[in-house]
């Protein structure tokens, strides 16, 4: 088993690096075609990003986005977990609400932005609300599905043993639904980030989304590329880490089922 897994994992890592090198080459190639006015090449963009990261103004924008994003993510996760738990445990409510949640997931939520702005005004609350709107629905859907997919025997056992509700939630529902819930956290993470950035692109005076919009106005290609690079690096690395945990959790549950 170990002998097989070793070289395979090694190969997979290699494949990842090859993909990254391929993307960098593609970037350079597009730059060669598009030219200096439209794009900045990989190396120059990285250097400019490092230079930006040395300035206090840039960090204040990063901090503004970061604060809004974290707050939005917390709200999305807490609210999504709550909704998901409630709907997952109650079959009829699940049947009533599930199609609504699924179709809300497919709606272009950008169109709701003016309403959010009218309700919250320009500034932090609107950004946070907009990020949370994007993140809360997948969190609720994944949690709900996870709990509905629980092995009914587990819940019946709990009833037979007359376990109190808190114990059931802590020692039965949470451990067995955790992998799916974690997948929800992963999806919610990326959508909340997109939502927060979108929020900053329309109605904000600070933050990375605002920097992007400002850079479009000024045709500041280097700035656009550097901010985009930073966002992609951040999103991709967090996502890779979350994906690794995600896979480990799924594997652990599968193994414990077999055992």
């Amino acid at each position, binding site marked *: 088993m170990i002998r097989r897994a070793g070289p395979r994992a090694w190969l997979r890592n290699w494949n990842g690096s090859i993909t990254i090198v391929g993307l960098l080459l593609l970037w350079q190639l597009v730059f060669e075609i598009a030219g200096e006015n439209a794009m900045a090449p990989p190396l120059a963009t990285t250097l400019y990003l490092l230079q930006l990261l040395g300035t206090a103004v840039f960090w204040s924008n990063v901090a503004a986005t970061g604060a809004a994003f974290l707050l939005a993510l917390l709200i999305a996760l807490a609210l999504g977990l709550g909704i998901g738990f409630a709907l997952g445990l109650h079959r009829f409510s699940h049947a009533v609400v599930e199609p609504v949640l699924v179709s809300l997931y497919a709606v272009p939520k950008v*169109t709701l932005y003016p309403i959010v702005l009218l309700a919250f005004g320009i500034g932090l609350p609107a950004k946070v609300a907009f990020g949370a709107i994007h993140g809360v629905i997948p969190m609720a859907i994944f949690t709900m599905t996870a709990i509905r997919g629980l092995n009914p025997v587990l819940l019946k056992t709990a009833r037979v043993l007359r376990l109190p509700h808190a114990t059931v939630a802590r020692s039965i529902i949470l451990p067995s639904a955790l992998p799916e819930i974690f997948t929800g956290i992963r999806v919610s993470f990326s959508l909340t980030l997109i939502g927060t950035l979108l929020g900053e*692109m329309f109605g904000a005076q600070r933050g990375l989304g605002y920097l992007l919009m400002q850079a479009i106005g000024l045709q500041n290609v280097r700035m656009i590329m550097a901010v*985009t690079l930073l966002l992609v690096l951040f999103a991709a690395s967090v996502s890779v880490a979350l994906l690794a945990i995600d896979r480990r959790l799924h594997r652990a549950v599968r193994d414990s089922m077999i055992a």
Partner: protein
Amino acid sequence: MQPATAVRLVLVALGVLLLEVLCRTGVIDHLTMPPPSEIARDLVALLASGQMNGAMLKTLLDVAIACGTATIAGVGVAVVIHARRALRQGLEPLFATYYAIPVYAFYPLFIVLFGLGDTPQILIGFMLAVVAVIMSTLNGLDRVSRVLRKTALVYRLGKLQTALHITLPCAAPYLMTGVKLAVAYAFIGVIGAEFIMSNTGIGYEISFAYNDFDNAIMYPLIVLILVLSIVVNAILSRWEAALLQRRTHR
């Protein structure tokens, strides 16, 4: 009608009614949101006047192009990747992290590259949609059972015949999932991009009306987009469910 469906409809109706009451009594002031009945009346007037026809046509056309090209390209890429393990393993980390990347961050770049026409918006819709199609198609191809593949070999079916008689019918429900996601993502991508920066389309009209404090245009258009995307999604979901059922019954 199933009881859950009935309760859902009643709840939605009650929600709209509650909004109506809140707006009429002034709890939600008129500048923030007009009552739903007024929005419905404005929507009918707006559609009848035809002043939005150009914008609607443009947006729908862009969405159609984005999701059409994404479907074709996605299925093509998936078929190529599926046959080559090394390539697939190399690309899988990219697919897995793809949706974590805020695609709209590339929009400014596309504007610089292609100008402020339809191309950047279609491209954003395409980028959002294509990976969903690739992943669904791969999933569908994975689920074609080995017995069926062997049967094809035994009957000496050609490549095209195998694809038409075995692979396609087996993978159809999963392809449908991909198409459904592609439509949803193309909507989200195109309208989002129009909203951020453009000079035509429904997304643009909404943001223009917002900047103009023109609630009589903004709210009807928002409702129009919501209803349109929900209806399209519901139709495709139903189709997907039918395909899935047919597959399991056979």
